[in-house]
């Protein structure tokens, strides 16, 4: 897969950072404004997919990248399960228990464990979507060569 023209490359270079920041904002403010882990993770993955599409697959070492995203998603899912299991031992013996102090409604640091779940779900979704995309790109390169 070759890269696109210089104009597309420049615009992508300017835009992808903004898209990435917007995704992070959606993830971290998931318990205050519409959005959350799934939406923000998909936006972050979209920023990376835009970069790969514009610059072509020669720029990156795709195999290494795929290994890293795969590891990231596995670790994020594992952390989610561990956090949920921690609810069993801290508090009222309920899976997915909200055991941290809830704070004031509307503040950025509030709602107990919900922001932490949001962050890790965001990591998981972004890494999973990127892994699927990279898997397809690598397959195409292998077939073409």
């Amino acid at each position, binding site marked *: 897969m070759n890269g696109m023209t210089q104009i597309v490359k420049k615009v992508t270079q300017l835009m992808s950072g903004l898209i990435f920041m917007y995704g992070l904002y959606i993830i971290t403010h998931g318990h205050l404004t519409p959005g959350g882990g799934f939406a923000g993770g998909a936006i972050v993955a*979209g920023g990376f997919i835009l970069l790969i599409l514009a610059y072509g697959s020669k720029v990156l070492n795709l195999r290494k990248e795929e290994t890293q995203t795969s590891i990231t998603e596995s670790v994020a*899912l594992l952390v989610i399960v561990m956090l949920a299991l921690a609810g069993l031992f801290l508090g009222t013996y309920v899976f997915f228990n909200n055991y941290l102090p*809830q704070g004031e409604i509307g503040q950025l640091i509030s709602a107990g464990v919900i922001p932490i779940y949001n962050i890790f779900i965001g990591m998981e979704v972004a890494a999973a*979507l990127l*892994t699927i995309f990279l898997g397809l790109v690598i397959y195409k390169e*292998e077939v073409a060569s």
Partner: protein
Amino acid sequence: METLLSILIGFMIIGALYALHAKDLLSALIAQGIVGYGLVIAFLNLRAPDLAIVQIVVETITLIVMVAVVLNSSREEVKESWNRNKILNIVTSLVIVGFMAYIFAFMIQPLQPFGDHTMRMSQYYTQMGAESTGAANLVTGVLFDFRGYDTLGEATILFTAALGVVTILRAKPKKETES
């Protein structure tokens, strides 16, 4: 609101039907995009911005991947003849549609009018959700506190999808590393 929704759903049905019968696969994809983005507008009208954000991003990424697949393979649809048993097919589908419509009209009677939900569970969620979870966004509160299992299931589905793609999509065998 109901008329707008009906118009949108009619538009989406037309898009889906066109996507089924289009000669060119690329225009079928565009017609399928009508369905997805129409769903975004429907979610926005039903005051569900959370779902609208997810839907618009996922729809865009899916469209990109599908367009890449179509551009790299053929734009022609596979020719298939479905002349045999044409009458039997039509009669079967009409019978099934009539049966489903009858069941639907039967099941819809005990439901509340459109827009009302007076179930005890959702009343508790909407009234006590903010206090009991501490999250100002009710949707996130429900997703990660009351319905944590659902979220775990969704994350597991994504994980399994990525695992399947990484495992199956492989033209050359993976190099035998020292085991």
